[in-house]
């Protein structure tokens, strides 16, 4: 509901500025937003580092690793085999201290946290303890980036579908306000209280387990088809259920809130006026209802996107979709700290990128930004 309420936010009127071209203004707005978002990401990632390292948890893991490596090296060193146990233990302690110093573990946490922050921001996410990428690398960055396209494919497709389908249904319903379809959608809107993965379970149960029409999960058939077209078809077949689950979980509430929103807007005087002039319905909708509400629609779309991103780990796990979310889930199971922290950082970046992208679109469609006023207010 937070989303739908935000839709009705009234934006305080701003003074239109004189001169300067549209492009420059949009550019300035984008720049200001970009900088603001970057600062936001920096703070977010720093908080992530703090949470992940509170109580020195990450350090402990790294210390343990160093201890083990050094011990094994010294135990197996034939040159040191004849040293007495005491000597050897001293030697291990010395080397561990040296290694810790090399990695900077002896510095105070404040300094280290900023180094972590810099590493995280530049995506130097360190090495995974147990997980490897498909190409066999231990680099967290590679493990995560390898998964990114599949996640983008799934969530991109479903979000675009959700956006256009619910928008067109909402417009249609606002035209036939009070009809049976309208009432059905209003009645079904509470069903969106359940998240996508929840509907995913039901869809898998019906279409995969009972009817055997569609696969349980995964992204392509095993073995993957060689032919690119067949490969694409196989991926499409595997995407039906996840996309369907995401649509099912959000479509009713978004149709409901947009339909309500359109209804409020279509009772404005200028819309009545346009109708009275005898303009065709399509034109009234496009020019007098859709156009002025576009910025708000985009805002609420951004919020839906954010909430969908957040649900990715469970959703991908349920559908066995080899994306970022499932990587995070696997990392939890293996207790792979580096990957967990890395995924969180990537999710923060993804959120910021989504918002930034929508901000640019927002700037292009919002006349307050395009024609005047500064966008730096937020």
């Amino acid at each position, binding site marked *: *509901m*937070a*989303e739908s*309420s*935000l839709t*009705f*936010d*009234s934006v305080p009127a701003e003074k239109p500025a004189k001169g300067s071209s549209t492009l420059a203004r949009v550019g300035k707005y984008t720049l200001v937003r970009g900088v*603001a*978002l970057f600062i*936001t*990401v920096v*703070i*977010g990632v720093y*908080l*992530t580092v703090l*949470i*992940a390292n*509170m*109580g020195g*948890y990450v350090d402990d893991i790294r210390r343990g690793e160093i201890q083990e490596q050094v011990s094994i090296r010294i135990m197996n060193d034939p040159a040191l085999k004849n040293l007495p146990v005491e000597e050897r233990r001293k030697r291990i302690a010395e080397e561990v201290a040296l290694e810790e110093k090399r990695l900077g573990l002896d510095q105070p946490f404040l300094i280290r946290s900023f180094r972590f922050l810099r590493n995280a921001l530049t995506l130097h996410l360190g090495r995974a303890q147990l997980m490897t990428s498909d190409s066999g690398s231990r680099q967290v960055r590679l493990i995560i980036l390898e998964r990114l396209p599949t996640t983008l494919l799934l969530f991109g497709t479903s979000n675009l579908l959700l956006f256009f389908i619910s928008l067109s249904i909402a417009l249609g319903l606002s035209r036939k*306000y009070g009809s049976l379809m309208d009432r059905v959608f209003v*009645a079904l*809107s*509470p069903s*969106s*209280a*359940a*998240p996508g*993965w*929840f509907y995913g*379970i*039901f869809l*898998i*149960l019906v279409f*995969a*387990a009972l009817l055997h029409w569609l696969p*349980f999960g995964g992204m392509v058939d095993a073995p993957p088809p060689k032919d690119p077209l067949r490969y694409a078809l196989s991926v499409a077949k595997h995407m039906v259920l996840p996309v369907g689950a995401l649509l099912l979980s959000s479509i009713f509430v978004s149709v409901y809130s947009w339909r*309500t929103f359109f209804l*409020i807007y279509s009772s404005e005087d200028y819309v009545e006026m346009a109708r009275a002039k005898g303009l065709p319905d399509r034109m009234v909708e496009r020019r007098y209802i859709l156009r002025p509400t576009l910025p708000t629609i985009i805002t609420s779309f951004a*919020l839906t996107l*954010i909430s969908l991103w*957040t*649900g990715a*780990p*469970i959703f991908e*796990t*349920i559908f066995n979709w080899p994306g970022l979310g499932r990587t995070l*889930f696997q990392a*939890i*199971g293996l*207790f792979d*700290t580096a990957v*967990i*922290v890395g995924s*969180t950082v990537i*999710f*923060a970046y993804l959120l910021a990128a989504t*918002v930034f992208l929508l901000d640019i679109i927002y700037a292009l469609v919002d006349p307050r930004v395009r024609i005047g006023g500064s966008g730096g207010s*937020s």
Partner: protein
Amino acid sequence: MGSLQNTLRELRRYPSAIAGIFVILALVVFSAYTVITIPYEEAITLWRGGADIWYKLPRNVPPTWVNTFRAKKLPESIILDSAQGQAEKTKEAMSGGQNMVNLTYTFDFNADDFPRALVIYFRPTFDEKSPFVSITWSTPDGREIRIGDFAVEEGSVFRFEQDERLQRRLKREVGDYPAQVALFMQPESDPPTPLKGTYSLNISAVTFEEEADVDAEFIAYGKVYGIAGTDHARRDLKIALMWGAPVALAFGLLAALGTTITTMIIAAFGVWFSGWVDDLIQRVTEVNLMLPLLPILIMVGTFYSRSIWIMLGVTIALGIFGGSIKTYRAIFLQTRESPYIEAAQAYGAGDVRIVMRYLVPRIIPVIIPQLVTLIPTYVFLEASLAVLGLGDPILPTWGKVIQDSLANGALFKGLYYWVLEPAGLLMFTGLGFAMVGFALDRVFNPRLRGL
């Protein structure tokens, strides 16, 4: 109070709201019943209990009521314990301090399917020399089948289908089927069909000491159990399904209340003090909206504690500066200019008094629908965490049942009841609150009224 009555009268116009209210009431009653009948401590010991508590239950079986929808009835478990007097027991002394203990278990079998397994748990009491038992099985059509002869120790367990000698004998006498099928089938039937009627199992034991005795528990594990069925660890799902309700309600309600009220107060203070306070709140909100909630909860769960109360605390902490601050702010900005606020200032009311007594109450109508619609979000958040394996380590919850079922391949194995029961309850709860919340939104939001 008058406004509350008005609201209720308005709500009556929405059938979905009435249904929702009934769902919520039912959940509250159900939770209270659960907490009273199965106290917290007991629920935890039961749920974390192992084979010693649950050995009597069959593994992974659907609830009994599935039989209502089946033409072929599945068998229920038959549990007969001679120590509880559920078997006919005779004991006669023989020469040389020996005793002859005779146990006869008689039971009716009327199902259309075979039991899952047959097991006898022996509980002999003796000092030195263990008693010797011989077991025979009689079918309704008068056949007698020798099961086995062996000595029993403390804790001896005889599993029919795992005994190779019995299996060989059955193959010769009845056919090559597992013991639980061979013993219950009509002779010569193919495919095997169960023979209905009264069966009896006879255990005659010879003990070699004056004081020695033999008791035994015979269990024919069924293919259905109880009102909710059982899971992979033979646990009765009823416990988790019942305890899931109070946990879900408490988590959803506390998280929704916690976030909404703090958000509201912070927004009010921001608007009232304006200037840098307001700016700071706005900036913090923007940063907070960028934070990925679920990954952070995952980190907290993995690194610190999976306790549901810690998770609740983190959820509330991250929800304080939520997106709704902006909505509230817009409303407070209008309210701030009202004459009655000016009047309050004129009579010398302090900042805190104005915020808490004059600003905050104005927003209650907006808050209530939001609060109610937020509850299912948090109920599902708890379930989501549990599905990720980050559920509370001790408490049984609906999410944990779903996680168990998915982790054990319930969908692949066709154990649908295992997924559907907790999912159905979650859906029921979510819909109940969402329906009331949507109706309240329409009642309180004049712009939506009549739409």
